[in-house]
């Protein structure tokens, strides 16, 4: 009989398969005795490491102008001249009446409609957790816009209804949506905490 690799519960890695993590004898999830387990001869398991990476040339399509305007510190929405609705994020076609829309500029001011403090970030998006994911009612838009809220001081100071303003990135970013984020807006001085934006390393 040919030489067998070790197949203990947390067995030794074989030396001929580079991706092998381990082999094991898996228990029956229904906890039947081996004699009554129809899969008893199929419980020997090999686990391997599998890495697949893809690269995409991703077009921002008909919303590209929104992202290009962010580089100039401008916030663009689209407006439907037929039904009067303003979409933010912009849509090239009104999702209410299917008319082709027009670009309009917003002031970037608004109010916090809802939010959550998220204690983890999804794997491909590099963000320090916890962070505040804000849903904002922007002046001039008929929809709500979701983005990060930064520069809020303490979490207890984040309140639904608080005035916020779009802040634009000064440093280079990886994804164009990270050219902007929200910060609390204070009437007298404008920015509540200008430095907070500079502190943020938005990388993807």
């Amino acid at each position, binding site marked *: 009989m040919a030489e067998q690799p070790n197949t203990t519960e947390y067995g030794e890695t074989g030396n001929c398969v580079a991706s092998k993590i381990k082999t*094991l004898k898996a228990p029956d999830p229904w906890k039947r005795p081996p004699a009554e387990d129809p899969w008893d001869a199929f419980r020997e398991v090999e686990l391997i490491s599998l890495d697949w990476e893809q690269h995409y040339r991703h077009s921002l399509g008909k919303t590209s102008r929104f992202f290009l305007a962010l580089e100039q510190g401008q916030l663009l929405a689209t407006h439907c001249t037929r039904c009067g609705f303003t979409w933010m994020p912009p849509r090239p076609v009104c999702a209410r009446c299917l008319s082709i829309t027009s670009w309009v500029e917003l002031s970037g001011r608004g109010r916090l409609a*809802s939010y959550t403090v*998220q204690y*983890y970030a999804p794997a491909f998006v590099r963000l320090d957790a916890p962070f505040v994911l804000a*849903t904002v009612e922007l002046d001039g838009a008929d929809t709500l816009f*979701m983005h*990060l809220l930064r520069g809020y001081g303490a979490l207890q100071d984040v309140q*639904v209804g608080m005035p916020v303003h779009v802040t634009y990135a000064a440093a280079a970013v990886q994804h164009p*949506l990270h050219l902007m984020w929200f910060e609390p807006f204070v009437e007298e001085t404008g920015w509540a905490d200008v430095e907070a934006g500079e502190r943020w390393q938005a990388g993807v």
Partner: protein
Amino acid sequence: MTGAPEVVIAGLGFSPFSGDRVDASVRDMVVEAVLAALSDGGIDIADVQHGLASYESDHFNRQMTLGAILHDSIAMCPKPTVRIEGGGATGALAMRTAWAYVKSGLCDSIIVYGGEQNGKSVTSATAQQLFALSSDADWEMMVGGTYTGYYATMIREHMRLYGTTEAQFAHIAVKNRRNARSNPIAQKPMDITVADVMASPPVAEPYKLLDCSLLSDGAAAIILSTQEWARSHSSRWASRPPVHFVATGCGTDFMRLGDRPRTYPGLAHFRGKREASQQAYMMAGIKEPLKEIDVAELYDSYSGAELQAYEELGFCEYGQGGPAAESGMFDLDGQLPVNTSGGLLGRGAPVGATGIAQAGEIALQLWNEAGGRQVPGARRGLTDTHAGTGTICVTNIFERRD
């Protein structure tokens, strides 16, 4: 649909739901569920006319056109099949589609097989990322948005509008995991308290770890047919009360919460769920759902989402979901037991299997085969399933007809 055949459940089966089925691929689990369903109904696969594959994600399953492999794995070639995908609603949309195939006369029998590998073969952060791809990937995922974050945004608005409390939705997290204790396929049966839920680590405020549903490996299969086909091809048919699939509805909403109309649904409501249930109630002739439904499986992707579903399905008024949850009226011994299986919180949620498993739980209840979680005398049951944050919603209704 005058003259259209009645659609019945002829057999059902599950693989165990697990956080980590290291010994099985998705096709292995689907085969387990199909063998169990054929055995349950006393059915020969050679007699089944059509297949239907139910799964959501090529990313999780690591296989495109998985449906073709599932179909050839269960001795169905060269008979026809189709694949259905609708995010979290995949399994319920699969059941609805299979219903239409039988109802229309396209086939007399169809086996719906679904599964998913959402368990520990990827890290939790990768799982959240892959699920986030099913939100608006250009606009919301890229700023760190995940489903827990979106649902948290919704329930926070519900709390603001109606005074709903964290303890009220924690009650649902406790209830469903308690119900899971008498379900042999359940992934995470637990004996916990509201205080345990409140003390669990925050994930996306106000949701904490125990408010969140499970990442699961698992599969489920159901054979739907005409009554005539079941009579002649299921050796189990005569020994069980007939369970009919009597009504189905489907509603939708914008993917982005912020694109939805501001007054209703706003951020706090699942408009598509209301639409789906109204369609199904009309088809089933239901006017007072709380009184006319005996048992329900609702889509508790988060504990608060079940509370919001009570309202959209008309089990209570808007704003009353919290007090209703706390009152115990949806507990196993309450007026309308909800998620007797343990739901997504306790039984588990392998996406492509979830909606099928919900229907399976209702059938077990109507057959009086639900063991320690049996609702005495249950004659009519409902499943509620949705994708995204209510982006695609499906309501399916089943009745015992003896």
